[in-house]
Each structure stands twice: as C-alpha cells, then as structure tokens.
C-alpha cells in the first residue's frame, strides 16, 4: 500500500486530507469524530473575538439533480469564546497526537493583539497556525479577512508580526478575490510565511428567490454577498495553485483548497504542487465519512501508477502548464466518432453546428442519419467529445504531432 503521509512545511499528518477551517471544525466533538473517521488533520474554525452570526447562512447552486454544485455562506468566524476554543484545541491535540491540528486566526490588525493570540494558540500544543486573510464577507467590513488578503502590504505586514513570535509553522490563507494570486503569495512569503493555503471562498450571490425577489440566503428580507465554494470552484483553485507553484518569486509550500470532494480532485491539486489538501463543503454535504473513499481512491490510483509516496507525483504537472504563447500551433488533432458506440443523440452535431465550426455532417448510414466528422474542417476543439454522453465514443485523433511552431517562436522570428 502506498504511504499517504503528508508534510506541509514540517507539519506531518497521516494522510493529506485535512478538514479546512469552517463549520465542520467548530468543536472538539466534531474534530474527534473526523479524526476517528480517518481525516489526517484539521484547521480549527477561525478563532478571534467571538462574533454574533445571522440566521440563514448558506445557499447553494444546484445543477439538474446535483445539489450544492456551488455553495455559499455568510457565516463568520467562531461564535465561541477564545478560551473554550483553545481549551478544546489542547484537548484534541492530546487525544490525537499524530494528527495535524492547526489554529486558524483572525484578529484585529494590531501587532500586540496578534502576538497575544499567537502565543495563546501555540500554548495549546497545536501543530501550526493559519492566518485567515481570506473570508470575503462580514469580517472584511471590519478590516479583517479578505480586506487584509487583498492588499499585499497588509498581508506581508501581519504575517511578519506573527512570525516575530511564532514557534510553529505559519500558513497564510489567501483570498481568490484578487486579480493575480502570485502577488498575495509573494507578500506572504516575504512576510516570512512557512506555507500558503488557497483558495478561500469567492465573493458571490448564488441566486434569487423568484417569489420574494430576495437573494439567498435571506435574512429578514435582505441578503449579503457570501463566500462561494464547492465543486464549482475547483478549476479556479487549481489555476491559482498552479500559478503559485510555478512562481519563482514565492517558493513556498502549498495547501490546496477549493471544491475537493473526490480523491481525483486531491490528486490534481497535488500534481499541481500542493503538499496536502483541505476539504470543507464535501464534508458539510456528506459528513466526515467521505474520507474513507478519498483515502482509498488516492491510494488505489497511486498503486496503479506505481507511486509510493505523495512526493513521487507532487508537482508533476506544474511544468505542463505554460503560457499560451508556448503552445505548438502546428499540433493538430481531429475528432473521430466510434459508430459502434454512437447512440445517435446528435448532440455533437448540433453543438458543432451552432457552437463551433460546422465540422460535423449528418450522413445516411443503415437507413438513418448519423453524425460524421468533416475531417478537413475539424479544428480539433474537443467540443463534440465533451458533449457526447457516451464514454470513449468520440476520440480526438492526432493528425500532426507538431513541430514546435509557437506564437512566441513566430514573434521572435518576426513572423507573427
């Protein structure tokens, strides 16, 4: 069996699956259940001066019969006292010494206050700290959360305050509500952070109740923009993780977060350079038990690929992401339909006809009209293969392996 042990900036955990800071990590009771279920670590629900929450806090984007494809919350940090939280952190760490327990912090932007919270948190025996510079709702109106993460100078400053006293690794949690994530990552790195975690939630309005005309979640007839997460945000998170992993200006370990609910999601984050992953929405949807399938699936895949440790494949896809200008313009693929598998739904035909390059025609075969690729017209865009409901029915076949003819090479040769 492959070894799933993970190491993020020196914080070791029996597997790379951590619970992200959020409602599932609100108490010792929950985290004990999670560790018993098999989670490798947990980032405590953000500790700070206790707040008062609103009633009605979540809303979701459902697609077809799939619930919570996207998930939105307007809940703030912990509403429990600092003392209660930290006492339970200490207790859980004593009970589960081999699991990673991280204290997430969000404090008013004062150096002394940060020092005080760092010391209190580390006194619990926790394995590290995560600075919540990410929440886009509520706390940001009070000068905390994403209002720090959106300004690299603040990020760097507060990180350096924390590092002045911290003895355990410091993870800075980044907000995606910015234009270029590498600026935020560099700021954290320059402030002395030991790792970054991302992404926090994305500003969102998930939808509007068409009877009341009030967006969800509604609080006494009004709503507020919330933090968006769940499977729908994974592609955004993967891009940001890969951007930091490839950035020489911030050579820093990464904890990947954003829409992870399957083992293959986790594998993708790790391939793009993450040292571990954090999960929240999926645990809120299905409960802590999902870690069983996460661990099993990742382990099976590693076994099949011959990977013994996470390091065997970590970052392996980072270099496969490049600028568009480095892509080979002479490389050519075309679609090919396997008529033995085709069920003749014609979704490929209408998609190409209306949405792409009119490269599929309907031809008569055995008494019916079926889709056929116009090979000379096909630009190899993939659309037909994406809409086809049948697995392995439409293949993209290589026509020209490419000759290294990139836009950048054309520019440098003065031919662009």
């Amino acid at each position, binding site marked *: 069996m492959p070894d799933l042990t993970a190491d993020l900036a020196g914080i070791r955990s029996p597997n790379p699956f951590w619970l992200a800071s959020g409602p599932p990590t609100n108490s010792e009771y929950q985290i004990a259940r999670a560790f018993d279920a098999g989670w490798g670590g947990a980032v405590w629900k953000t500790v700070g001066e206790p707040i008062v929450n609103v009633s009605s806090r979540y809303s979701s984007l459902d697609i*077809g*019969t799939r619930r919570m494809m996207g998930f939105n919350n307007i809940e703030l940090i912990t509403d429990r006292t600092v003392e209660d939280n930290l006492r339970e952190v200490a207790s859980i760490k004593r009970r589960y010494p081999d699991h990673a327990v991280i204290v997430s912090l969000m404090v008013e932007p004062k150096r002394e206050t940060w020092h005080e919270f760092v010391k209190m948190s580390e006194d619990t025996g926790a394995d590290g700290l995560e600075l919540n510079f990410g929440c886009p709702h509520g706390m940001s109106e009070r000068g905390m959360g994403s209002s720090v993460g959106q300004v690299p100078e603040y990020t760097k400053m507060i990180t350096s305050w924390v590092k002045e006293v911290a003895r355990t690794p410091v993870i800075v949690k980044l907000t995606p509500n910015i234009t270029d994530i590498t600026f935020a990552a560099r700021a954290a790195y320059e402030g002395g952070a030991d790792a970054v975690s991302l992404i926090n939630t994305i500003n969102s309005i998930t939808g509007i109740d068409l009877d009341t005309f009030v967006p969800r979640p509604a609080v006494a007839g009004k709503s507020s923009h919330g933090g968006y997460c769940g499977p729908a945000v994974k592609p955004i998170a993967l891009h940001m993780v890969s951007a930091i992993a490839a950035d020489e200006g911030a050579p820093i370990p990464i904890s990947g977060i954003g829409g992870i609910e399957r083992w293959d999601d986790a594998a993708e984050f790790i391939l793009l350079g993450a040292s571990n992953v954090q999960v929240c929405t999926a645990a809120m949807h299905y409960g802590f038990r999902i870690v069983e399938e996460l661990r099993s699936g990742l382990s099976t895949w590693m076994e099949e690929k011959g990977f013994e440790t996470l390091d065997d494949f970590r970052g392996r896809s980072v270099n496969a992401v490049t600028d568009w200008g480095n892509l080979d313009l002479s490389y050519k693929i075309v679609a090919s339909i396997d008529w033995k598998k085709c*069920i*003749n*739904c*014609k*979704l490929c*035909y*209408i998609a190409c006809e209306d949405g792409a390059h009119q490269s599929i025609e*309907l031809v008569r075969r055995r008494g019916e*009209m079926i889709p056929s690729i116009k090979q000379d017209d096909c630009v190899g865009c993939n659309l037909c293969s994406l809409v086809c*409901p*049948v697995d392995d029915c439409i293949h993209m076949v290589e026509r020209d392996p490419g000759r290294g003819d990139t836009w950048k090479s054309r520019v440098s040769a003065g031919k662009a």
Partner: protein
Amino acid sequence: MKRRNLAVRLTPKEWKARWKEIHPPLTAAEALVEANRCLYCYEAPCIGECPTHIDIPSFIRKIALGDLRGAARTILSENPLGGSCARVCPTETLCEGACVYNRWGREPIRIGLLQRRAIDHVFDERYEPIPAQEREDGAARVAVIGAGPAGLSCAAVLARLGHAVTVYDGRKSAGGLNRHAIALYKATPKYIDREVAAIRKLGVNIRREVKVGRKPSVADLLEKYDAVFLGPGLGEETRLNIPGENLKGVSAALDFLDELHNREVEKIRVGKRVAVIGCGNTAIDAARAAKRLGAEEVIVLYRRTRGEMPAYNHEYEGALAEGIEFRWLVAPVRLLGRAFVTGARCVSMKLGARDRSGRPRPVPVRGSEHTIACDQVIYSIGQRSDIRFLSTIEGLKTDRHGRVVVKGETMETSVPRLFAGGDCVNGGKEVVNAVQDGKVAARSIHTLIGGSKEASHA
C-alpha cells in the same frame, strides 16, 4: 348447489386492490430526476416515433427546469389528448422504444409518465395552457361526428383556433373507445370525463346521444355547417359465425369492456374459467380484465402463433405475468351449452402458405377436435368498418376494406367539405393515431375553410 353462470364477483375492496394503475404517476421528485436523465437529443428519434410529433426533448427539459405549464403547452399543442395518450399509448413501441438510451443498454426515459406529470399538473391547477382564441366573424362552424379521440382532437384544435365546433356522439358519455374500452388500469372513465370537460371548456359543444345517420344525416350537417369531420370509429366486433355464439356468457370484447366502464362494480360478474378468442390488443385487454375481475383461469385461444399475433409484445408479456394462459394454433368451431356456455369445441391448426395479409394461413388439422371447458367466452377477432353508416353518405369513397379514403395531408374525403380521420380511415390503430388525424383535419379545415374566411374578413 346448482352451478351458476358468471359466478365470480368482486367486493369493492377486492376491486380496489386488483385494479390498481399499471403505471402509477411519478412523484414530483421522481419526475425531476427522470427529466434530468433526458439527453435532449437533437432531431430526437422519440419525436419521429410519436404519431403526433410532440417536441418531447423540449417538454422534458421544461419539466427539468420547473416549467410544467410550458411542458403541458408543448404537449397539448401537438396532441390535444396528451393526458390520455400519456396513459394509453404503447410507449414501449413508440417514443420510449425509440429512445437512444435503448441503444446504450439503459432504461429509456419514461416519456409517457413525464407527459402525464405535466398534463396532470395543469389539470390539477385548472390551468388551460392553450386557451381558445376569441371567435371572430370569420370563424368557421364545424360539425364533428364522434366524440372519440379523433373527433375530440379535431374539435379541440379547431376551438383553439377560434372556430365554433359541435360534436355529435351517439353514446351517453363522450370519449369514444377511450371512455368505453380502454383498460381501466391504464385510464379510468373518470379521467377521460375530465379530459372531455377540459375540451368543452374551450367552447366545444358536445351533443351526446345524437346518432348521426338518418336524422340528422351527414348531408344535413354539411348543409348546416361550413365543414364536417367524420370520426365515428369502426362498427361492431366481427362475429365468430359459429354455432352457439348466442349462448349466454358469450360476448364481444368491446361489449364486455364497455360494461366494465359503465356499470357499478358490484354488479359485474365474470366466469371462473374464461376463454378469450383472438390475440389482438383488445383481446388481451379483455383477458387481463377478466383475470382482474376474479376469473380463476383465463385462456387465450389464437389460431396462429405468437409470431403472428397482432398484440404488442409488452401486452402479451404483461398478460403472461398475470397468469393468463395462451394456446396457439387453436380455433373454436362451436360453442357448447344449453342456455349458458359450458365449453368451446375447438380444432387444432397448423400454419400453411402465406395469405393476402402476408401471414401464414392457419389450416385445420384433421381429427384434432377437442373441447375446452369454460363458463364464459369473450371474442375479439377484429372490428369492421361501419358500412351501414358510411353508406348513408352520398359520394363517399371507401376502399375494399370499407375504410374511408382521404387525402393524407389534409384528411379531405371525396365529399367536398367533409373530412375524416381515426379508425374509420386507418381501419383501427392507436388512440394517438386518431388524435393525429383529428389534428391534421382541424388544421386543414382552418386553412381551407376557416382561413379563407379569415382572409376575406381581413
């Protein structure tokens, strides 16, 4: 104790337990899941297999998106009897049989039940998705003969287009075979009455217990109306023409089913051992009904084999699963009994050369006579054209089977301003085929007669 004819009778409680719907409706949640399974094929084969060409992917997507009224509108715009078709259509061989999922080795989309979901929804909320247009001066006045599926479809489409429609029907209640013969586990008379009521609400005037023939004659109607649609269906069930067929306990399947639809439950009796003669869909309906009514044994006798039976395979399978026995290559030659039938004298058959229908002709096997004991005989060996009525219409062209000849694209008969559709034209097909005929006729009446009036009006 003396053995009694038609000895079996169900209590109301037993009736309720035995006559459950064969395809119960989907719940809202089930419908949503099912609708979301639909691939939304382009040029979907299900549309092609639907005789009324309902835009099935569109109505299913509307259901998936929560727009049940829109779904019902899509259905009813092509099929005014979408509710009963959802219940009685042989979807297994039509839309659902064509679903691409079949090729994928997956269960096809349950199109019939989704259609029912949409139509039931608007019925329940008393919403009319396609209200009748206001009647203008140029509106045509149209008489429809027969309140069966063809006539009602024609009437509904015409009413929606703003024409004045009067439907004449000889029976006590409108609905035709839908009302009087459809298997009760598919559609109930109560439901058909509701559907008829919705069509009446469009402004259609239905005159029941008025049999067109002598008085009023079709000629009278053509004089009084701008156009007449002929949708009388077929005539009586073909008789067996064997000795003993007038014995008590012997009836035509349509009469047997009619009684089932129009009599109180407590009064309906059935034999203990019922022989059903013929193996079409009506015969199977009768056999399954007899079994549900409490008959201990039901035996279907057919003079050919399963390969040649006119019944749908899914109907046969359903009957088999309900314990109905099939005897192939058997034909009755005489029904036995004094007052009540006590058995059928039968002869075994073998298949001979192909006849004009293209099927092998059954040939009696010499010396094979045998008796099948039974205390009820129900026969269904085909319905003939109602020649007696059709011959009252001067100038009406019929083919050698007595079917009314029409121009397919307009449903015009050889008589000017007289249109026809349904079983009297096709010789006996599905409800949905009759609905299509009625719709096509209505649209051509609108174009040829109503439309020209409208044009002059404008």
